């Protein structure tokens, strides 16, 4: 079985700074990290591999520097890593991104043996864009079942998985599906390991990152990058904090009482 894990390199902070002139993220001086939920995805793949014979393939689309997060996935234990990088991919929205990722997965699947099944794992959402769209769109592109917001997974047999999906708060749906399928995972599913020292050494000395561009993927350029995007960013901004800050004092009882009054007045409850 092949397990594809889709990974995004994101800025390592919760609050982003935007260049007001270009409306793009300021990346200077900000360390880039592997999107946290994608790391949960890698961990899940490693846990599956510990029990079932499989090959873990990490996949990322981004500029050449995105290879850093793929190295990290390799250091954690992924077997192979593909970086989809090409100027033609730049400026992609979620649709163009998932189309490109789908081309790569299809290509790798076609090149493998016919009876080998596959599972695609995505983090539910990335901490920069927060759209949670790439996973579902990728499943549509691949025309395979998708289960989002997954917090638990088990295999019923070689080709069937059972997952727990958080539907609404405190509502869990259990779904069985045949592979191939795509799941998007939540951070609750596991706690990702640190790569071991040998893992890091092997990631650099024993493993390679395979680069794929638009030509290798035989892509239709009208479906890639900015050209292939159906959404257009009109404006990006960090919301200003407008709320007032009130400090309460007195005994605990008094403060609690005052707090409840305020909440009622503000119709918070």
């Amino acid at each position: 079985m092949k397990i594809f894990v889709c990974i995004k390199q994101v800025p390592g902070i919760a609050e982003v700074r935007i260049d007001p002139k270009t409306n793009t993220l300021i990346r200077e001086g900000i360390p880039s990290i592997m999107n946290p939920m994608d790391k949960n995805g890698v961990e899940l793949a490693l846990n599956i591999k510990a029990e079932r014979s499989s090959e873990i393939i990490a996949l990322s689309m981004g500029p050449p520097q995105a290879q850093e997060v793929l190295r990290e996935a390799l250091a954690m234990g992924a077997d192979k890593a593909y970086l989809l990088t090409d100027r033609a991919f730049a400026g992609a929205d979620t649709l163009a991104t998932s189309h490109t990722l789908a081309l790569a997965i299809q290509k790798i699947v076609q090149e493998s043996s016919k009876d080998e099944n596959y599972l695609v794992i995505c983090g539910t959402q990335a901490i920069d864009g927060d759209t949670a769209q790439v996973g579902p769109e990728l499943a549509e592109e691949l025309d395979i079942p998708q289960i989002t917001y997954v917090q638990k997974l088990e295999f019923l047999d070689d080709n069937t998985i059972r997952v727990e999906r958080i539907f609404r708060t405190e509502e869990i749906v259990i779904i069985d599906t045949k592979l191939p399928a795509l799941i998007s995972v939540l951070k609750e599913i596991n706690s990702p390991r640190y790569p071991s020292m040998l893992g890091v050494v092997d990631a650099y000395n024993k493993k390679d990152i395979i680069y794929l561009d638009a030509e290798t993927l035989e892509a239709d350029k009208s479906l890639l990058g900015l050209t292939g995007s159906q959404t257009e960013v009109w404006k990006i901004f960090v919301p200003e904090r407008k709320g007032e800050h009130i400090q309460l004092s007195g005994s605990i009882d008094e403060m609690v009482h005052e707090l409840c009054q305020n909440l009622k007045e503000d119709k918070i409850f």
Partner: protein
Amino acid sequence: MDFKLSAKQEMIRKVTREFAEEFIAPIAEESDQNSQLDPKVMEEMKKMGYFGTCVPKEYDGADLHDDTISFSIITEEIGRVDASWSITTGVHASVCLYPIYKYGTEEQRREFLPPLARGDHLGAFVITEANAGSDAGGVETNAYLDGDEWVLNGSKIFATNGGLCKTILCVAMTGQKGRRKELTVFIVDTDTPGYSVGVREDKLGVRASNTSELVFQDVRIPKENVLGGKGQGFSLGMKILEYGRIQMAAQCVGLGQAALEASIKYANERVQFGKPIGEFQGIQWKIADMGVEVHSSRLLTYQASWMCDQGMNYGLLSSMAKLKASEAAMTATHDAVQIHGAYGLMKAYAVERYFRDAKMAEIYEGTSEIQRMVIAQTLLRKGWQL
């Protein structure tokens, strides 16, 4: 000349820093006060491969035997949060594991390295005795050959990892070479009858690390457990320490770095006379000196590591690094306590621990005076050459 670390080395630093901050730092103070290394941390560190850094994968190591810079980065980052752990792994790997890999026979490597590299066994290297410390030639522990076995008698003191180790490199006297003693290094399994652990020392610093007295009473060691040949003990011991000193320097870089970071934070936060104390020149000069001292130590340490990897003679540089880094850690931690004022004297502030840990480093693995002796002798004999 390129001062840039490789992407691999950068990742080793990043991962080790995050790991150390998550698993080691939160209980460092508790470990110091209980004088105990936490077994759960030990298990996590084993998984990370921190006990097998400097030997190849084929002996279950982390394959960093030709990348001493990475090994130093690991020791530095662990030392940055808890010097008791960095001395434990540093000593284990640099003066027990690595010498067996570097100077051992293939049989010795196969027998001893894998469990040591996995951290299932802990290692130690012992020279110091009641009458032999800085003067390594004063060793009185002795061994004689009886049939196919060496019989070892004597006792060692201040052995780092002493009470916890399974494998010891023990320097003992095996005869006389003219007026000098003939020394030999033995690989001793601590399960051998006749071996026992004496008192465990209660120390000023690196309190969680185990420092004990070791007793050898008719300990019978297989003939093949001689490391590097009979009579090679003195020169081999010195070579082992040359390598070990790099790691001791690295741990001091981490300790100094910790003192610097704590001081920067405190100087920016603490307000007296209406402004953060970092705005006073008296504090600024201390911070500036700490930065210079710590980073120059780091450069010496990395250069010694690099020379080791290049197959160059690195003895001079490793002594310089150990001397510089331990004294820099001492002054940096001293100033850190001063910057923190009365808070710096309190157990609740980590700088109090850093200060005690740093003092240890000016003494163990060759005192500052011994390092100066080594450096001066090398310079006077060979002139300035790297």
